[in-house]
């Protein structure tokens, strides 16, 4: 397996998870994932590529989409419910994930971005701080506030 494919296979799950949490849109998350990998692989040498760079690029693409008012909301997961092959436990887990996605969409996009980054990647606060442009001392407070807000949103729904 060459460098490109190895890079793609190593990081695609984390990136797609981040983009689903940001957009709650299966199709859009896939489009942004394709754009992000294409940009990183075509613009940067292997020694420059890394998780932080990939997420920085993907975040910029996702935020650009939001600025252009792309339509969000379709999780694209409904078709899975039509296939009960996984059994009851699998359906319950998916429903819980959809509630979490809906809760994330109710946060403002900065809070959603922070939680999506910490939940989807092994990036440190220092690395996230460089990506989002918030100092570490402020970042730790912002992340906890975002978690608190999300918890309040989910508590209200239950």
């Amino acid at each position, binding site marked *: 397996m060459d460098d*490109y494919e190895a890079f793609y296979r190593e990081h695609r799950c984390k990136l*797609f998870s981040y983009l689903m949490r940001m957009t709650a849109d299966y199709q859009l998350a896939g489009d942004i994932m394709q754009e992000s*990998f294409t940009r990183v692989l075509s613009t940067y040498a292997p020694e420059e590529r890394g998780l932080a760079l990939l997420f920085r690029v993907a975040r910029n693409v996702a935020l650009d989409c939001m600025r252009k008012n792309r339509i969000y909301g379709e999780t694209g997961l409904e078709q899975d419910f039509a296939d009960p092959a996984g059994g009851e436990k*699998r359906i319950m*887990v998916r429903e*819980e994930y959809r509630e979490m996605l809906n809760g994330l969409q109710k946060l403002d996009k900065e809070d959603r971005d922070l939680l999506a980054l910490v939940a989807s990647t092994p990036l440190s606060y220092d690395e996230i701080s460089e990506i989002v442009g918030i100092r570490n001392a402020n970042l730790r407070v912002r*992340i906890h506030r975002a978690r608190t807000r*999300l918890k309040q949103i989910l508590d209200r729904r239950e």
Partner: protein
Amino acid sequence: MHEMISLYIDDELSIKEKLVFLDRIHHDRSYFLSAADFVRYEQRLQSDVVDDLPDICLPDVFLSSPGKKRWVVPLAIAAVIVLCVLWLSPFYQRMEPLTIERRFVLYQPGAVQVEISGTFTGWKPVPLKQVGTSGYWELNLELAPGEHRFSYIIEGERVLTDPTVLAQEHDDYGGMNSIIVVENKA
């Protein structure tokens, strides 16, 4: 203090903070219950239940295939031989210079530090020199012919494109770069 719960979840506690955190959850039951609650929610947030990722099409050049590589090594060897011949040939040595001098000038009166960063500096900031008390800053650099991207950095923080260059583009960091084309004029 409550943000220590998030630091605990994200493995960002220092050793000293770990001791404080452990002491707090040991002695404060409500704090312990709150921390446990946040961890449960985090477990839900981190659960991934998309079984199938969408198929994406990377351009063919990114995909490996044993058949495509058969021609690469002979072509690389041929390219090296051609480059060596050209490098040693008298004809090549009479050819145009490899670099062209380019003067960069920016008017920033009141600034104490002006730097330039671009493809020709490996994106490392290089300081410009002040031109007396005129408010102008300048730097002469040797650039290879071709397209280059760059921007100015004021006081180590503010990034400016070149006001004299029309061509610009967004970079991957939310900023803008100027684009210039250096041509041989000999």
